């Protein structure tokens, strides 16, 4: 089982590094203001990804409990995430119209005193599956959740992630409530750095994701759980990249590393779902209404 789990984790890492390193293909040609808008869906996706699957019940025992969970998510990317309004900051070029983000399709181009200003296209992504694993341990109606993947190198790309969550069942302090209520705080970080010998391919993301939620659940016959919650969340992605200036319009910053900070669109989320306890295994499925509508499914080993 350990070997299978290792292969699973390694596989996820390969998927992550091979897919998201490619965002650089478009960013390398964009000045920081445009790069920020181009990569915004990625910041939103990271936030949607990490702030999902953190609960399936508000009920926490007073005795010790351990959980290991594998969470799968499927996020739907709306058309609003696929375009942005260019803002090149170069005199003589328009700041209107629209062009593709990382998840859009074809990029536009403009004509000005400096000739063509061409924007990259995107990968035309309409949905994105993802997965994560987590462990949680708790007692006395309080639970700590951990997500961790060590910093590893896959070729020239290094990546790692960690996350922590703290949850407390507040309904234990009130008598006669018909359901359980809990508060939870989450913080997750993921980073990726592509540092090959070729400086022109340098790319680094550092995504920080915070969330706080209140959720409630009701258990029937010790087997069926319905749950729901409201969550406030924020996502920021620091982006460093090598600016190649293929349009030859930015001589002062051409062939230098550039940095920008990208805020995701995700702010509020409503979650509703259900779970089946076949202890020690629990299956859950929920819907998340946020900037990227997301389905989350989980399998947990609960001891």
């Amino acid at each position, binding site marked *: *089982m350990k070997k*299978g*789990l290792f*292969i*699973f984790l390694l*596989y*996820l890492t390969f*998927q992550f590094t091979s*897919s998201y390193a*490619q965002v650089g*293909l*478009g960013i*390398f*040609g964009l000045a920081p203001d445009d790069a920020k808008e181009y990569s915004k869906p990625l910041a939103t996706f990271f936030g949607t990804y990490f702030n999902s699957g953190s609960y399936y019940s508000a009920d926490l025992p007073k005795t010790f409990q351990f959980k290991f969970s*594998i969470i*799968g998510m*499927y996020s739907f990317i709306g058309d609003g995430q696929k375009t942005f309004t260019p803002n090149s900051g170069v005199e*003589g070029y328009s700041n209107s119209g629209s062009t*593709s983000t990382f998840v859009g*399709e*074809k*990029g536009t*181009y403009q*004509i*000005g*005193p400096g*000739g*063509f200003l*061409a*924007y*990259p*296209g*995107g*990968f*035309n*992504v309409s*949905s*994105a*599956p*993802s*997965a994560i694993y987590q462990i949680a341990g708790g007692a006395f109606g309080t639970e700590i959740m951990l997500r961790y993947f060590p910093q590893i190198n896959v070729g020239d790309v290094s990546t790692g992630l960690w996350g922590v969550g703290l949850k407390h069942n507040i309904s234990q302090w009130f008598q006669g409530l018909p359901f359980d209520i809990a508060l939870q705080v989450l913080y997750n970080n993921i980073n990726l750095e592509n540092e090959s010998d070729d400086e*022109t*391919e340098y790319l680094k993301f550092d995504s920080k994701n915070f969330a706080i939620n209140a959720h409630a659940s009701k258990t029937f016959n010790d087997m069926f759980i319905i749950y729901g919650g409201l969550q406030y969340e924020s996502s920021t992605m620091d982006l460093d990249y090598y600016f*190649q200036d*293929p*349009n*030859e319009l930015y001589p002062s910053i051409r062939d230098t590393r550039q940095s920008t900070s990208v805020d995701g669109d995700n702010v509020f989320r409503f979650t509703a779902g259900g779970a089946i306890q076949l202890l*020690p*295994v629990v299956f859950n499925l929920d819907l998340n209404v946020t900037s990227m509508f997301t389905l989350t499914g989980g*399998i947990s*080993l609960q001891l």
Partner: protein
Amino acid sequence: MKKIYNCFFLILITFTFFFSSGCDVLEKFFLNLPIKEGITATGTSTTIAESDTVYLRDYDAYSDNIDKIISIKYLDALYRTLPRGENPSPPPDSLNLTPGLVGNNIQVTVTDGDGNLLFTRSLPSVAAEDYLTEPYMISLEGSEITLMNNYLEKIKDETERDNISFIGTITMSGIPAPPPGSVNVLTGQIELLYELEMEP
């Protein structure tokens, strides 16, 4: 209890398989590649002309992804005059555009790397400075675009794709001879815009 663990492990493997078949979400990627080639024509006669060859392999977006490129399509072309250009003999010295340079005709010609004419245009204004701040958009006819795109089909040939190139020529005729000891200088730039379709 052991059966339950085995069951859990089987579910995990199934879950992994599901994601291994579903994670390939990135589709084809389209990248607009501007080819910008400055050409400096100099001389003391009434006609000055210069040609320059540009290889797509000289552009990182092309050479770094050459194995992933499915197709290349022509999008647009323009000519503009630069205030300053590279001296062709010897580079990397630079030369300024001759102020007030006016002739009878400014012609822009592009041929493919095999020497086939793709298009040629005489610009509407014969004053080089008119294109300093406002490029001239070169609108190609359908047959010219077909010629261009047919040549770009070489991307599918592994032995030819490294040699895809274009030769740009600018010619200015009917210009007055420069004062003794100086030369007429036309610093122009031909820009071609292509769309690369790439595998993720």
